[in-house]
């Protein structure tokens, strides 16, 4: 609507000025610092999952990791909308969007255009596409609030929504990221930690099958560090998958993760 256009240049959000000073917290070579939410370096935020968040969808899930809040709806399998060629396997269509107020600065969520195709790739390998030929499954995600590690949360939440919709999958897909801050590897970083990271590693896997479906690394990593980072993520993914499974079974959906 008209409210969006043009206004951004003439106004500014007051928050950036307050952020600048905080960089001191993460002194690069300082080993001992405390994370802003008091967690240990290798401790994830408490994860909360809930399925069936959206009534009109075939399946849906809501995930909350600290301040990161995501809703994913799954529609289908349904008729492919576009006039597409015949396909004997199903199609997966993904879309990720942000609310305008999700980010500290209004409308920053538009920067994440690549998430839609990345989500597609992360899920594609886990879904048994042969089970719904000629049709499309739509996976739509909306980030209500961005509190760091958004994309891993979206992926995990989407796989839960797919399970809720009864789409056949080889395994649940769980995703976790670590940030490299100075000498430390910090799991499940919050927004602030992400903005000062020297490197990041995001791993998506199917824990029961012990297979990695998506891996993205940025920044400079030596081999031992890479091994360490991957191992931390794999362990965390396994735990996360347990929480997700518990949520699907309807038992005790909140668990503290360590």
């Amino acid at each position: 609507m008209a409210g969006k256009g043009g206004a951004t240049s003439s106004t500014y959000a007051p928050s950036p000025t307050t952020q600048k000073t905080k960089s001191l917290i993460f002194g690069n070579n300082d080993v001992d610092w405390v994370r802003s939410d008091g967690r240990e370096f290798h401790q994830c935020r408490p994860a909360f999952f809930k399925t069936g968040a959206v009534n009109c969808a075939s399946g849906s899930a809501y995930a909350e990791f600290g301040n990161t809040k995501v809703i994913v709806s799954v529609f289908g399998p349904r008729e492919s909308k576009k006039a597409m060629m015949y396909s004997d396997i199903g199609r997966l269509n993904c879309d990720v969007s942000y609310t305008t107020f999700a980010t500290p600065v209004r409308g920053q969520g538009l920067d994440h255009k690549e998430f839609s195709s990345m989500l597609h790739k992360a899920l594609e390998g886990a879904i048994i596409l042969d089970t719904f030929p000629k049709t499309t499954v739509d996976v739509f995600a909306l980030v209500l609030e961005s509190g760091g590690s958004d994309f891993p949360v979206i992926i995990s939440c989407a796989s839960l929504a797919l399970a809720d919709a009864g789409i056949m999958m080889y395994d649940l897909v769980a995703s976790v990221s670590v940030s490299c801050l100075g000498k430390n590897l910090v799991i499940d970083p919050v927004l602030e930690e992400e903005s000062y990271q020297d490197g990041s590693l995001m791993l998506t896997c199917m824990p029961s099958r012990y297979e990695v479906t998506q891996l993205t690394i940025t920044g400079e990593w030596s081999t031992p560090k890479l091994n360490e980072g991957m191992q931390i993520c794999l362990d965390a993914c396994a735990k996360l998958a347990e929480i997700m499974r518990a949520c699907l079974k309807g038992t005790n959906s909140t668990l503290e993760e360590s």
Partner: protein
Amino acid sequence: MKLIISEMVGLSIGEKHFIQGGIAQDIRSDGRKRLTPRPINVKTGVISQANGSARVRMGATDVIASVKAELGRPTALQPDKGKVFINVDCSPTAAPMFEGRGGEELSAELSVALRHCLLGGKSGSGLSSLLAIVSQWNVFESNCRVKIWVPLFVSGAGIELSSLVVVEGKICWDLYIDGLVVSSDGNLLDALGAAIKAALSNTGIPRVNVAAGASGDEQPEVDVSDEEFLQFDTSKVPVIVTLTKVGKHYIVDATSEEESQMSSAVSISVNRQGHICGLTKRGGAGLDPSIILDMVSVAKTVSEQLINTLDSQIAAAEAGEDES
């Protein structure tokens, strides 16, 4: 993307078996071994209007990268850093499917992968902690312009953003790196990575003299020199090696026919020290974590070779250009 590529190539069942079987037996359709890349051909300075440009050919894959520098303002969050934008376009000349908006999906995918591999993080803040070392200035004269070599890129993961600042918080260089896929026969990401590296080494950023006296909120006046250019030392810019998994094995520098048979591909950017500077995985199929680590170590050995070839090619191309 996998789907579209395989549709485009349109192989018969026999041909598919031939490709897969060849890879399993370590002899590919064009006679290469699994880990042998195609010969690489680099030409620099192909776009005279850009600050730097290069054209890289690997077999039938042909890409052009250009670097344009424009003066801009640093962001409020990072007043001590310049900005680098990487954008890739797929020309319809490469394949009819890129016509109209058809190439956008692939273009976006390549742009994001390159940003991950070269810029080190979404915010572009990757590895900026290393200091920019200004080493000795090798001044030599070419035909008309004096080149002053200052290694601006020192960090391992690609591009040192703090070296692009002219006046902190006021003026910085914005580097627009544009890639164009002219002809496509697989392994576009590696080719684009190599082209960007070559284009950066060909780039001359005009020296900027800042007029003294400007203070406060005023935008200082600058004088952009036509004669003095700063150049980047690109020996530390990483190269990208994509390992494509076909069947049980993985290959480097896959052609588009081989890519159509892939189950997954891992693109790893490695610098001269052998450190990983970025990694992205494409293709849906899952991979065992140990295979990924194995791929990483293979990528390191392959990258050494690639960096050496590329560096000598760049040097040869630059020498050729200076003579002409």
